[in-house]
């Protein structure tokens, strides 16, 4: 591995979505970084890659993946890792991230961030996969906590204990999705502050903020199709209080609003963080 540490980077950014490509490329936008979905730019050429190249000249870029499947006991897809490494070498991102989840089994990819039981077997699987990915990519990764809609009776630890152990054992950093903490805390009836208070202070390098929607029987669904709600802003303030200034991003994947709306929401994050600075 070339480097075992990721220097802190503070600032406020947005997820780059194709609806806003022209505005990002046409004028200076008030962001400190953009986050791309890695898979949208892997193994391709043409206009997508030109857009990424042009974006890199304007802003620091973060690569955020959805397909690594760290929780797969069958191991990681080597072709995927090879393509991810090629993109990372070309993009030279601030960092590369993915999720604490699994996405499928050999021969069947769900293209979803599926939940893991928090067991020693799952932890060992994630650590082994993460170490391999970090070796191939020659950099530490950030791992994000996903939202989840079910728990497993076989779990022997909490999600936050699992993440803490994962960071300690693998050397990875964490992408704290504050909305996901809130959604899971409602769905699984835990105190979100207990989650934050166990996550190691020195391992969080980025925060995601997003909206969610109401699902059946009181469950919340992580839909990324709405503004950040008041409860998540309040939890964000607690997170900044604990982890200090941290790269913060608004994540919107559906019902994409005008860019100005997202920039205004990002200003809210700036304001919330500055109050605590």
């Amino acid at each position, binding site marked *: 591995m070339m480097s075992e540490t990721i220097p802190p980077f503070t600032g406020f950014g947005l997820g780059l979505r194709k609806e806003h490509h022209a505005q990002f490329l046409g004028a200076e936008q008030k962001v400190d970084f953009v986050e791309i979905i890695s*898979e*949208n730019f*892997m*193994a*391709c*050429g*043409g*206009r*997508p*890659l*030109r857009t990424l190249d042009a974006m890199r000249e304007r802003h620091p870029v973060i690569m955020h993946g959805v*397909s690594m499947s760290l*929780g*797969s*006991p*069958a191991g990681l*897809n080597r*072709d*995927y890792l090879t393509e991810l490494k090629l993109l990372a070498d070309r993009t030279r991102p601030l960092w590369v991230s993915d999720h604490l989840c*699994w996405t*499928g*089994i050999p*021969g*069947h*990819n*769900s*293209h*979803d961030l*599926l*939940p893991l*039981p928090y*067991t020693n*077997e*799952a932890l060992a*699987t994630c650590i082994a996969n993460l170490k391999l990915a970090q070796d191939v990519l020659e950099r530490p990764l950030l791992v994000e906590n996903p939202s*989840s*809609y*079910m*728990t497993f009776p076989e779990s022997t630890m909490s999600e936050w204990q699992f993440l803490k152990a994962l960071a300690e054992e693998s050397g990875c950093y964490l992408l704290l999705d504050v909305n996901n903490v809130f959604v899971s805390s409602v769905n699984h009836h835990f105190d979100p502050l207990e989650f934050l208070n166990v996550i190691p202070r020195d391992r969080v390098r980025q925060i995601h903020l997003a909206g969610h929607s109401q*699902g*059946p*029987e009181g*469950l919340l*669904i992580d839909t990324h199709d709405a503004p950040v709600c008041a409860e998540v802003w309040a939890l964000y303030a607690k997170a900044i209080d604990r982890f200090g200034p941290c790269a913060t991003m608004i994540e919107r994947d559906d019902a994409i609003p005008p860019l100005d709306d997202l920039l205004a929401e990002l200003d809210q994050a700036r304001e919330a963080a500055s109050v605590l600075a």
Partner: protein
Amino acid sequence: MTLLAAQRAFVAEIAADDDLPSSSLGMAIYRNAYRGRLADALAVSFERTRRWVGEEMFELAAAHYILTHPPQSWTLDAYGADFPEALAELFADDPEVAELAWLEWHMQQAFAAPDRATLTGEALAAAEPDWEQLRLAPAAGLTWREVNHDLAALWHGLTDRSALAATEPAVLLIWRKDLSPHFRLLSPDEFAALEPLLDGASFGEAASQVGEAGLARFGQLFAKWLSEGLFSAIDSQSQ
């Protein structure tokens, strides 16, 4: 149960037919998300096909495909690769449906295909190639298939089914020039002249197949193909 066995059971449940109830509310949410995500991917990739067959028929076709074609690639962008073939079976009496779907799919593939610089006539002339031995590489995303309908009319939004007549067989060619994907219908004669070059034959070999009488037309067609950007580079073996 091992983690892998549990994951196999989980995937089997979210991908199962609607007739089987979900074992929990959480599983129902993951199952719904699985179907929805794949259906959305097909709807985005085959927007024109969906308009042509109608939303209801498209949704039925998509639901069948999702049940019978589990996604295998790490990228969701690959999910529709076999959808045109599936539509050929589902719409056996309306073969234009599969032809349009094939066109849509490969135009998208060409849009994001790995880069290959377009070979211009000027660059080829400047290279002063040995024409007899010259071999050319195809443009980014170049592919073809035989079709029997006016795909240009379908692509540009034809909605009147009675206006779509079956045509003489033609070859639908798709490629990317610079950043833009293109397609064109070629007559069987024109494609017969082009195909050897796409298959790796030398210029001399391809020219010999058209015969003495066809050489002048072959030269004109070659100039046209170059201007359209059908080739990307001079094959290194010919230099």
